[in-house]
């Protein structure tokens, strides 16, 4: 099978805007893959919130981020694009960061030009390092991935538009400089209008990565195709949907008691991923057991209570 890094490059070149939803862990990545998305995105905001219960303020460490990226990449077959914040330091740290992320099995990362510690791209108070310092980091990232996997995708994100005193002109200038330094895609974070997105797409000389969230306009598929956006992420998709669903369920359980859980299970059973054991992969486990364990071992299923996995590996194993 083609490497995920190569497949991500094919997606970028497809000429159609690729819609990539943001997940925050292996489960939500699997859900988006099941729905049929050709790639998933690992949100740093979502990782920080889900893993640490903390805001996206540069508190999550590189170790925590790449570990989460690895769990996600191991859980799905589609390419994963992961948030790598500012590369966790200077150009030297970026080399380590790229190496660690390549090993996780993700297909690409974005690295931004914010100071340490960084913050969410859609929260005020951002600051950026100098263009030259940032360009050095992308040169370092480019060199590091060439050693390990030249197809690994380096996305240069500039936060200059929303930084204190920042302008779109500066952001466009930086995006072009970062592409020259060796980045594959430009990610201008936080344009505030369609006109700004149009300028980015016109004036940045490389494939465009667009984050459809926060202060930035929502665009239709047709608009994105017209503008020439290669990839658009919906960074907060999974954690926002999860937050709402879990909160509402919690309120129902608190107010209505156990009946709320019973009613939920009844509804969920009819849901496309309502067979949780199957979704989790027990059919695959059963198929592996059939293939690799002594036949006597399979007797454990006889007369045992609970979900009986499909020994053919279930519907998703084909």
């Amino acid at each position, binding site marked *: 099978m083609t490497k995920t890094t190569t497949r991500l490059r094919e997606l970028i070149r497809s000429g159609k805007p690729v819609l990539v939803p943001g997940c925050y862990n292996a489960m939500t990545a699997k859900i988006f893959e099941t729905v049929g998305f050709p790639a998933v995105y690992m949100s740093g905001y979502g990782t920080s919130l889900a893993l640490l219960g*903390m805001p996206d*303020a*540069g*508190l999550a*460490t*590189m*170790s*925590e981020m790449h570990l989460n990226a690895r769990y996600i990449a191991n859980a799905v077959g589609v390419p994963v694009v992961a948030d790598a914040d500012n590369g*966790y*330091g*200077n150009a*030297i*740290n970026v080399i*380590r960061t790229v190496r660690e992320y390549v090993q996780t099995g993700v297909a690409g990362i974005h690295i931004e030009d914010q100071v*340490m*510690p960084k913050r969410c791209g859609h929260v005020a108070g951002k600051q950026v390092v100098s263009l030259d310092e940032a360009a050095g980091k992308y040169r370092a990232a480019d060199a590091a991935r060439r050693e390990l996997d030249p197809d690994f995708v380096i996305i240069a994100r500039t936060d200059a538009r929303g930084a204190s005193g920042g302008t779109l002109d500066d952001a466009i200038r930086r995006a072009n400089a970062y592409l020259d330094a060796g980045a594959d895609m430009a990610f201008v974070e936080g344009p505030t209008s369609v006109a700004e997105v149009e300028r980015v797409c016109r004036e940045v000389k490389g494939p465009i990565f667009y984050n459809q969230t926060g202060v930035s306009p929502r665009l239709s598929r047709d608009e994105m195709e017209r503008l020439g956006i290669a990839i658009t992420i919906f960074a907060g998709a999974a954690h926002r949907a999860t937050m709402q669903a879990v909160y509402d369920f919690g309120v129902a359980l608190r107010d209505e008691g156990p009946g709320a859980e019973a009613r939920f299970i009844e509804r969920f059973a009819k849901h496309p991923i309502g067979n949780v054991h199957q979704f989790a992969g027990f059919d695959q486990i059963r198929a592996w057991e059939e293939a690799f364990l002594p036949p006597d071992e399979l007797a454990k299923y006889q007369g045992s209570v609970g979900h009986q996995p499909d020994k053919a590996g279930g519907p998703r194993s084909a």
Partner: protein
Amino acid sequence: MRSTTRLRQLLREPGIVVAPGAYDGFSARLIEAAGFKTIYMTGAGTAASHLGQPDLGLTTLTEMATHAGHLASCVNVPVIADADTGYGNALNVIRTVREYERAGVAGLHIEDQVAPKKCGHIAGKQVIPAKEFADKIRAATEYRTDPDFVVIARTDARAVTGLDDAIERANLYAEAGADMIFFEAPQSEDEMARVAREVGAPLLANMVAGGKTPPVKLTDLERLGYKLVIFPGVAMAAAVTAIEHALTRLKDTGSDWPDGPVLSPMDIFKRVGFDWWHAIEERFK
């Protein structure tokens, strides 16, 4: 008793406290077995042993805290751990203190270098403004959950802005709440004496063979007024020499039998708690 409280008690007793540097669980065990009352976790040694990399700010908070936890859990004496710059600004320092507390160490030191940091004894260090670092120390002391957790402020300013500024910084950090001052890399015994005279806080001395500070005898450090002395490289330097020697021998002779007495696998297991575990095995079998 918690290790934090034990460390505070040790620091209140008369005399200088010696903390040899451990770079992993094995070296921590050997330090404890040798009778030392406290252990120092070296960041340079962690980077070297854990990652096989130099001390250039490549290790993450997660790696350092995890490593500190491994050390603290295999010994009974308090562990003081290197926490570099606190891995970011005052907010990151709050997270760092909490992670180190959970790791079970008794104290940490945070330095006023820019992130990513460099080893205190190599050129090219940079420091952040004194006020900014004082705020980081304030954040560390206000947000520790265990009041006995020891926060040591380290200044690297001697090599950057000079002795006078570094002394001024040390006093500012003490006022901000640091329990102890780690004045990194004074360049002579006279400088160490001046630091001891002019800094109004308990002091940590850092003895690094081959570093920028000359070796000073323990009795002299004590006389000057230093309360704690760390020898970060003692175990690692010994290990490097011994391992290189053994490997050369293996290459030359094709044998791993040493010149001197032979350490059997059991001799080694006994140094990492075999007897303790064996006694438990006997009780529960």
